[in-house]
């Protein structure tokens, strides 16, 4: 049973339309220090997705009423550029971008040691320059790299990856067609050192076994991506 129409996206040998195997992820590049005025920044490309994240702070939180006396507040803004998709995105926030900002903020709040900076604010701006599928994963992963680049204390980085189901096969890192015509999508935010989760969503249905398989794909991909994040952070800019 195909989900939406009967689009064949994976053949009997387990090769997907773009030539990947079920557990393969799209090519990734990560670069730090791309916004010179920011305290920390990151550009991440993932397949044809591209995100630029800038982090400012810690700084005094304004207006005063948003200040917390015992911790810092995180201000995460996810935005897609009008030119990031084939049909023009209307500029400004919308229901979807608010939701993604919220889940990204919640995920980052569980790794950043906010209690070290009472009354302050840390601003994280995620800008999606080019969107294919899985922009929330790119945004969250890049945001954690940018926060580390800004020297903000965190208990771990966050790697976010999605797995899903197409033509009844569980595959890792869906591309646009697979996301649109597939049956399920399971994005996860993973702390790569401990394997703990900071973010989990599911679209569509997965059986228990399929869920476990998607989980495993995500965990394995997270380790692979974590290596690139470490390399991007430690590779450049050092003295």
């Amino acid at each position, binding site marked *: 049973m195909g989900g939406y129409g009967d689009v064949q996206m994976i053949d009997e040998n387990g090769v997907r339309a773009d030539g990947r195997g079920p557990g393969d992820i799209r090519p990734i590049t990560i*670069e730090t220090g791309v916004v010179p005025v920011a305290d*920390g920044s990151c550009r991440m490309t993932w397949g044809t997705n591209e995100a630029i994240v800038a982090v400012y702070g810690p700084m005094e939180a304004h207006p005063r009423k948003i200040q917390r006396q015992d911790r810092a507040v995180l201000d995460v803004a996810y935005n897609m550029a009008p030119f990031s998709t084939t049909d023009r995105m209307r500029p400004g926030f919308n229901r979807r971008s608010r939701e993604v900002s919220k889940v990204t903020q919640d995920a980052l709040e569980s790794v950043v040691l906010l209690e070290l900076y009472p009354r302050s604010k840390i601003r994280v701006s995620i800008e999606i320059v080019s969107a294919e599928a899985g922009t929330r994963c790119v945004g969250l992963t890049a945001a954690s790299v940018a926060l580390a680049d800004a*020297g903000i204390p965190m208990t771990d980085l966050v790697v976010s990856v999605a797995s899903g189901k197409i033509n009844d096969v569980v595959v890792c890192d869906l591309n646009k067609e697979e996301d649109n015509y597939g049956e399920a999508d399971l994005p996860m935010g993973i702390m790569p050192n401990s394997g703990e989760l900071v973010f989990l969503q599911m679209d569509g249905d997965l059986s228990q076994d399929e869920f476990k398989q998607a989980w495993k794909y995500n965990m394995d991909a997270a380790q692979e991506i974590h*290596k690139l994040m470490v390399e991007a952070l*430690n590779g*450049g800019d050092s*003295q």
Partner: protein
Amino acid sequence: MNGGPVARLDNMTEKKGAAGPQGNKRGENLVVPGDDLGDSEGFEAGHGVLVMSGRLKALKQGKLREKGKSISIEPIHTRYIPRPGDLVIGFIEGCTNNLWFIELGAPFNAILPMSLGPGKVDFGGTRSVMDIGDAVLCRVQEVEETHSSVVTMKGMGLRKIRSGVVEEIDPHLLGRIIGKGGETLRRMKAETQCRIVVADNGRMWIDGELDGILDVRNRLSAISRDSRGGRN
């Protein structure tokens, strides 16, 4: 795109076991948040390090430093956070009848009370002594838990800056400007015939002939350009 630090996963399976610090190796290496730094037994967690269930864990990205029993991380890129005793250059951002608010480039403005100000100041006369926008060389007296800090101008050489220029540079580049034992800085002072005061918050006061000041500026921008791998 031009020569920045780029990590690349080219065809999905390459680069297994790519570079990155090995968790247990202690020395002058770079770590990222979440890195395991080994057993906490017999060690003290310093700046940027946390003990979690018997293991040392990195909280920041930077260089690992081991001093005796204490393990700490010196961040490569970070906002200035005041510490008591720091020599700082601030700008006056506001005043009340009996105190000034000083901007240090830190998350919060510092307070300079009249009693710690320069010389004798009458109540209500703060603004006639140092006005908004003036630069001052001062020292951090105390820092509260909530990060609000008090600075003082009582001390040798602490004063309002009346001549020369104030330049700003990333705090993590200070080490490079000063050099081993202050050698690089001494050479820069001699060659440019300028007085240079390097403050801990990444600001420098340069005083001298115009040519000398311009020369110092060029050298500083060369250092900061260099640190970004030739970009900008």
